[in-house]
């Protein structure tokens, strides 16, 4: 119990003192995971809408594959990407291994299926007559998708929060493709693992509390946007 109390105290102290290394690790975590979530939204929402609306043979198989991807173990995603990014690997010439970009890529692999699958469900549950109404109003293809997304914004924002939550909290992929290099690819989750293995439990817990506070702040913003115009 005293470990927990010490952790809370230390977390506050770390934040207020502006400990440079903690700030750096926190900012890197945010940058990497927000970027991965943004990319997953840009690609996943249209992809999910397409899966929901298009009709082609094998559509259900593809949708099932997307749903399977939602449960991808982060360490497996990290391992596969590591092998691809090795110098001797097919993408080795890119020199991306042990860089923040590699972590972003791995996290996109994790978040994209989540966003795609939830977007497809969000679009599918819209009234089919509503889709016809939008077309009848004279919408172009782009306008049509935009209006559908706007109508489904509640579940779509939930998809964004789910995707972000999945990547900000993962450690397996960040550890494998990032290497947990101090000052370069150390993020909150990998720092927590390191401090735990070094026995600095209260520091590890403090970082954990910091991570939770961060996730809460981001989701507070997204939830506020999602719930605008609805009763308190």
């Amino acid at each position, binding site marked *: 119990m005293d470990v927990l109390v010490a952790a809370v105290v230390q977390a506050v102290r770390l934040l207020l003192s502006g400990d440079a290394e903690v700030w750096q690790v926190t900012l890197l975590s945010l940058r990497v995971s927000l970027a991965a979530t943004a990319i997953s939204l840009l690609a996943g929402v249209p992809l999910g809408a397409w899966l929901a609306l298009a009709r082609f043979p094998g559509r259900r198989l593809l949708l099932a594959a997307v749903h399977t991807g939602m449960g991808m173990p982060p360490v497996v995603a990290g391992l596969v990407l590591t092998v691809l990014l090795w110098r001797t690997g097919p993408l080795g010439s890119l020199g991306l291994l042990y860089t923040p970009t590699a972590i972003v890529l791995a996290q996109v692999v994790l978040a994209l299926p989540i966003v795609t699958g939830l977007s497809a469900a969000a679009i599918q549950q819209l009234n089919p007559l509503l889709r016809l109404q939008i077309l009848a109003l004279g919408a172009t293809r782009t306008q049509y998708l935009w209006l559908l997304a706007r109508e489904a914004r509640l579940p779509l924002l939930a998809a964004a929060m789910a995707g972000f939550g999945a990547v900000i909290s993962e450690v397996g992929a960040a550890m494998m493709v990032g290497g947990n290099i101090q*000052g370069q690819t150390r993020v909150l989750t990998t720092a927590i693992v390191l401090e735990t*293995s*070094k026995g600095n439990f209260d520091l590890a817990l403090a970082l954990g509390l910091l991570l939770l506070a961060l996730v809460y702040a981001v989701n507070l913003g997204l939830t506020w946007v999602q719930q605008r115009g609805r009763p308190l």
Partner: protein
Amino acid sequence: MKRGHLEAWLIAGLALLLSGCTATAVTPVGEASPRSTGGETPSRPAVLLATTTSVQDSGLLDVLVPQFERATGYTLKPIAVGTGQALALGARGEADVVLAHAPEAERAWMAEGHGTARLLVMYNDFLLVGPPDDPAGVRAAATATEALQRIAAARALWVSRGDQSGTHQLELQLWQAAGLAPAGQPWYQEVGQGMGQTLNIASEKGGYTLVDRGTWLARRSSLALVALREGGPGLRNLYHVLLVNPAKSPQINAAGAAAFAQWLVSPETQALIGAYGQDRFGEPLFVPAAGRSEAELAE
């Protein structure tokens, strides 16, 4: 703002962070730019070092890395993994230089042609640690071999790293020398993790384990374990730096690797290594050993 449009701007704003993710390196915080040596920046500044978690956990890297970068203008990327993985990465050409402490595995590695040079850098020793009440009576043992035999006889809990690390390989040699084969026995538990985690588990469960001095000094205050046997023949822990054979891949930074190795064995760095730990733990963690021979140290 119109309903629905805020969400679009939010997403677009998040997407702008894309520009941030293209940065592949972040300047180490609190340090002066590593290029401030006055000399020219090397054409290929990044050096990939594969080393072990024990080296990282000891905290030595945190001191060495910024000094190396400042002195030479290279950027060091240390990847701390298990010894097996570090040597495997070197064998694949995925690292430029390896810092390990598993002499037998390293010799085999060199014999297979993976490296062009192997230099002794420093050493310390291993300790046998365990619960303060010492149920197996290890304190009374005359040799390391006898200590292990007492543990086996008492079927006392032994926590092994089980990960082909330098520590693990030494542990296996000790069991072999004692004529014992504990694998598979219920009191012999392999955790497959780094030294820090292994110590945590041994401390929680009240078990015995083998630990290098560096990690021990850094961790002992937070563990419910005591040192029961230290030093002596067979418990030497030798650290070598190995240069990966550049013939493996054009991407190998042979110049950077050589610079790192040379820097490690230089007198200034050796002094740094010899002093490390004094202020934090009251005694140095490592003994600088550049220039000495392996045979000389293994009695």
